[in-house]
């Protein structure tokens, strides 16, 4: 199953902030984590992650520092900041409301659309 790209875009910021809240990471590791968490069904265009990270950095939600990888290459690590945690908490509330509303709609409808999709 492929996730609609608008949905991916909308969830990108909270996902990245949430993953960084668990610990500092570099770009590729963030994407790997996203893939693991979604069971491989949330595929981002890899290149798009970096402009997003740079935007979050400009907004002060994350900070970055250059380090070196095991192979000795330059690697940029990202860490969440206090303002990033505040933004994450804010997003979490918003998503909780959305998810709750959706759950009620799914329950009202007799047949959850997800099962038919998976079958197809």
């Amino acid at each position, binding site marked *: 199953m492929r996730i609609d790209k608008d949905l991916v875009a909308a969830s990108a910021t909270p996902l990245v902030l949430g993953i960084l809240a668990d610990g500092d990471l570099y770009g590729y590791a963030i994407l790997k984590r996203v893939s693991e968490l979604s069971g491989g069904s949330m595929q981002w*265009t890899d*290149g798009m992650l970096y402009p997003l990270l*740079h935007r979050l950095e400009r907004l002060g939600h994350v900070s970055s520092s250059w380090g070196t*990888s095991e192979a000795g290459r330059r690697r940029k690590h990202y860490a969440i900041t206090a303002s990033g945690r505040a933004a994450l908490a804010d997003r979490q509330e918003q998503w909780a409301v959305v998810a709750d509303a959706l759950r009620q709609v799914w329950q009202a409808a007799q047949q959850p659309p997800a099962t038919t999709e998976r079958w197809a």
Partner: protein
Amino acid sequence: MELHAEQEAQIGRWRGWVQRRQAISPADVDELEDHLREQVADLRATGLDDDEAFLVAIKRMGNLDAVSHEFAREHSERLWKQLVLLPEDAEDAGAPPWRELGIVLALAVGAGLAVKAGTAWLGDEAVLARNLGLLVLPFLAGYFAWKRRLTARVVAALLVPFALLAVVLNVYPFVPGGSTELLAALHAPVVLWLLAGIAYTGGRWRSDSRRMDFVRFTGELVIYYTLLALGGAVLVGLTFGALQVLGIDLEPVLEDWILPFAVPGALVVAAWLVEAKQNVVENIAPVLTRVFTPLTILMLLSLLVVLTPAGGLVDVDRGLLILMDAILVLVLALLLYSISARDPLEPPGLFDGLQLVLVVAALAVDAVMLTAMLTRIAEFGSSPNKIAALGLNLLLLVHLVRAAWLSAGCLLGRRPFAELERWQTRYLPVYGVWAVIVVVVFPLVFAFA
């Protein structure tokens, strides 16, 4: 994880490809490359071979246009090229980045001191006017001599004509207020400018492409100098106004100190700016030619309309000839600067046609004026001024007629564009020769009158 040589080459090519995107900085490319390598390594661990892993990793990275567009949205400032005057990582080991700035400022101050000393010691205004170029040029040429590491032979080749010119300008017994003196003062800077060109090209003045570089440099220098002059004028105006309110008159200081230093100094600084920016910022002169070529065509056509019914052209005098020379010089500059920016391999387009129209219109206007002028010279005799203006007019005419012929050939696809370009650069020294004749021969012929 160690990759094979082929893989390294692939990644190197990809890096070069990404680096060409202006919105993606070198640090971003490092970040993306690290990502790509991790991805490739993981994919190979799942059993893909090198090529497959690389292709999949590139595909996952996404369309480069879209990614670079995203980068541009986040870093819009990167689309504006920034001129870095003091590079942080100096490439020449041992040469601190501020050394060039120091030399430029010293030369600028030196040019100011030379002009100031000239005003103090030469006294007479006419003598100063003749020598002004001689006072300023060595500092500009000195900058290029340092920058291009001129050999002793080239320096000697510059010094000898410079010294001869200085001797001629100061030994000739010019009649005070005579026109040969004025002509010599006007034409000496042209000779000096071509000497500066030899310094600029590092002595390789025979090379067509280096000559074209000097033409580009001249155009950019004029623009940067104008910008500096405008900025300086605003600054002086504000200071002037503020001091006037306080009851202090800036004028004597302005005339005695600020202008003698600022005007020649700005020339050296402008030359340095053009040198520093040449790789970073687009040339502006060719952009201006695009704007002004159609407008100049309109101007010339309206001139033709006004002139033709006037018929007799009773009041033509040397003023008109000089005006005509100015128009031809303008047309020539428009032609030269658009040629300087044109890709020789591009097929002829609309703008090339427009340029031909411009040149032909200028020639038509010139032909009308020139016939009127020649009849008047035949009737009332010649003067040094008339001959000098006429001579320049003829030189410009030959230049433009041949250029029109060649560009027509280009448009019809019969000649390569490079031939038109070569004609421009080959012809340039002729102006220098003419200027030498006006400075050296005219006073002798016209008895220094």
